[in-house]
C-alpha cells in the first residue's frame, strides 16, 4: 500500500496533549502518547475537524505559500466558489477574479464552471441508470476517504466523476496550453482552497494518477492581500463565466438543487454525514435519487481554511448569485466526456478489521469485549484514546495496555493510605451500602 500523504499535521511544540482532538476525530485517528497527539495515518481522512477544534492551534494544514506560483511561467488561479462569500458588500464576482489577477495570476478559471459541467454529467448519470440509487456525491474528498475506509460497501454508489476542482483544473490547463503555446510543465494551476482535504486530493489523488493542479493556496492565506487589491479596483474585468448552479455548490444543498429533481438529501457536518452513510448501508434510503454529503458544517463555506463564518458566507453567496444565469457551462455533446470520469477506481481499504481471518477477528473481538467490560466506561480520554472502547481496541491490537487507564491503575493502588495521594476524581468511591442508604434518606 502506498504511503499515505496527509495535509493535516501536528505542531509538537504547541500540542499540550489535551483530549480535544481525540474526542472530535470522526474516524478515531488520533491518540495522545507521551504528552503529544499522534495521527494514525491509515485512518486520517484530512477532514480538518482537529484543526478547527484544537484550542492551542497545534493542528495545521500543510500547504503552498502564495510565492510558489512564481515557479511557473504562466499561472492560473482556480477559485472555489466559497471564496466569493468571504467579502462584505460584494455585488459582482468579477471583482474577486480581477483581484486575483492583480496578485500575479495570468488567468482565472472558476471552479464553479467545473461544477456546472459536473452537475450536467450527474444528471445524465442518474438518468442512465448505470449506478445504483441513491447515488452518493464524490465532490468532498474527506467524504470519499471516509467511504473508502469506513463504508467500502457503498463505493459502487459513489458518482465516478472528477470533482469540480479537478475538472476545472483539467479544462484550465487545456485552455492555457492552447492559448499560450507553452508546455504543460510551464503552466502552474493553483486551487484557492477552503479546506485541507482538497490539498490532500491534489497531492495524492485517489481517482487519477496525477492531479491537473499543481498546488493549493489556503483562502485564509490569500485573503488579506486579495482584499487589499480588491479595494483598489474601480472597475472589474468581465471574467466570471458561471451561474447560479456553479456558485451554489459552495454551500450544502447547492450540488443537489443543481440536479433539478426533488428526491435528494443533503447532509453536512461529519457526524451527520456518518449517520446518513449508516442509513444508506442499511438500505433505508432507497427512494432517494441522490445524496450530497459535505464533511464541513454548511458545506465548503464551513471549511477550516476559510476566513468567514459559514452562515455569513452562505448568505452573501445567495445574494451574489441572485440574478446570475442558471448555468453558463454546458457539455459540448449530451454525453459524459471520458476525461471527466475517474481514471482509477475507488478501492476500499480495510483498516478497521481486527484480524486477517474471521476466526482471528472473532477471537480478538471477544477479548476486546472482555477488556471493555473491565474499563470504567467514562470515555474520559485520559488514556490517550477517545473512548474506553477505543482503548480496548488498541489493547487488542497491541498498541496500548490496560494500565493506560487511570481507573485500572487505581485498582493496583487499592490501599486506604494511598487514596489521599490520588487526585479526587480518580479516588475509589465510598462503599456501596453507604451510597444506597443516602439515596434512601
Amino acid at each position, binding site marked *: 500500500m502506498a504511503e499515505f500523504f496527509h495535509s493535516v499535521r501536528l505542531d509538537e511544540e504547541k500540542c499540550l496533549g489535551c483530549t480535544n482532538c481525540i474526542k472530535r476525530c470522526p474516524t478515531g485517528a488520533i491518540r495522545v502518547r507521551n504528552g503529544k497527539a499522534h495521527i494514525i495515518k491509515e485512518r486520517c481522512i484530512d477532514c480538518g475537524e482537529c484543526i478547527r477544534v484544537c484550542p492551542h492551534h497545534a493542528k495545521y494544514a500543510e500547504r503552498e505559500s502564495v510565492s510558489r506560483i512564481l515557479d511557473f511561467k504562466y499561472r492560473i488561479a482556480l477559485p472555489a466558489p466559497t471564496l466569493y462569500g468571504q467579502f462584505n458588500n460584494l455585488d459582482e464576482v468579477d471583482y474577486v477574479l480581477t483581484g486575483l489577477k492583480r496578485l500575479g495570476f495570468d488567468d482565472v478559471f472558476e471552479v464553479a464552471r467545473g461544477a*456546472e459541467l459536473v452537475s450536467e454529467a450527474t444528471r445524465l448519470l442518474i438518468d442512465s441508470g448505470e449506478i445504483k440509487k441513491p447515488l452518493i456525491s464524490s465532490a468532498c474528498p474527506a467524504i470519499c476517504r471516509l467511504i473508502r475506509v469506513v463504508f467500502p460497501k457503498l463505493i459502487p454508489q459513489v458518482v465516478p466523476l472528477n470533482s469540480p476542482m479537478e475538472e476545472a483544473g483539467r479544462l484550465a490547463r487545456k485552455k492555457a496550453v492552447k492559448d499560450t503555446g507553452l508546455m504543460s510543465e510551464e503552466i502552474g494551476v493553483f486551487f484557492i482552497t477552503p479546506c485541507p482535504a482538497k490539498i490532500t486530493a491534489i497531492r495524492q489523488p485517489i481517482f487519477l494518477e496525477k492531479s491537473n493542479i499543481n498546488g493549493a493556496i489556503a483562502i485564509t492565506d490569500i485573503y488579506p492581500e486579495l482584499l487589499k487589491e480588491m479595494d483598489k479596483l474601480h472597475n472589474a474585468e468581465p471574467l466570471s463565466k458561471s*451561474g*447560479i448552479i456553479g456558485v451554489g455548490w459552495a454551500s450544502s444543498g447547492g450540488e443537489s438543487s*443543481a440536479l433539478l429533481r426533488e428526491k435528494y438529501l443533503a447532509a453536512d457536518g461529519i457526524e451527520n454525514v456518518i449517520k446518513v452513510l449508516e442509513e444508506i448501508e442499511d438500505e433505508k434510503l432507497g427512494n432517494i435519487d441522490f445524496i450530497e454529503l459535505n464533511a464541513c458544517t454548511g458545506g465548503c463555506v464551513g471549511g477550516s481554511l476559510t476566513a468567514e463564518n459559514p452562515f455569513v458566507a452562505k448568505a452573501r453567496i445567495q445574494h451574489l448569485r441572485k440574478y446570475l*444565469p*442558471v448555468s453558463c457551462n454546458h457539455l459540448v455533446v449530451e454525453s459524459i466526456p471520458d476525461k471527466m470520469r475517474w481514471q482509477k477506481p475507488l478501492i476500499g481499504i480495510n483498516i478497521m478489521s481486527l484480524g486477517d481471518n474471521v476466526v482471528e477477528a472473532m477471537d480478538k473481538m471477544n477479548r476486546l469485549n472482555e477488556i471493555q467490560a473491565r474499563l470504567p466506561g467514562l470515555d474520559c480520554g485520559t488514556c490517550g484514546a477517545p473512548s474506553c472502547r477505543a482503548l480496548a481496541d488498541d489493547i487488542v491490537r497491541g498498541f496500548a495496555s490496560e494500565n493506560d487507564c487511570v481507573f485500572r491503575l487505581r485498582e493496583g493502588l487499592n490501599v486506604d493510605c494511598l487514596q489521599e495521594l490520588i487526585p479526587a476524581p480518580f479516588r475509589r468511591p465510598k462503599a456501596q451500602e453507604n451510597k444506597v442508604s443516602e439515596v434512601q434518606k
Partner: protein
Amino acid sequence: MSSLQLHFDVDGEDFTRAGEASGSIKRTLKELGLTPDIIRNVAISVYEGEINMVIHANGGMIDCEVLPDVINVLLRDSGPGIADISLAMQEGYSTAPDNVRDLGFGAGMGLPNIKKYTDEMEIYSTPGVGTTIRLKVYIK
C-alpha cells in the same frame, strides 16, 4: 435617431440556459457605458421575465431596443397565460414547481420586481394563448 436592436429566442427546453439572454443584454448595456442603476434595472427586470418564460411558458422571445433616452423591452411567450394578472402581480404569489424553488426561484417576486425596477410596465395575457410584457427604463 440612432438605436440598437437586440433579439433573443429563449429556449424553453433547457432550464439550465435560463438567464443567458438577460446576461447578454446586461453585458451590452455595460459596454454602452450606461449608469449602473439603469443597467441593474434593465438586467433584473429582463432576467425575471426570462426566468418566467422558461419556468412557465416553455420559452419565448425577448426584444430589446436601446434609444438615446429610453430602453424598451418586449417579452413575448406562447405559454398558458395568466388568468388573474392582479393576483400574479402580488408579492409572494407563485406557481413555480418545487425543483426550481431549491435554486432560489419561485419566491413570487418575478412580476413585482419587473414593476419595481422599470419606469413603465404593461402586461397582456390571454389564457391558452400567451403573455406579453412591455417595459421601459428611461435613460435620464
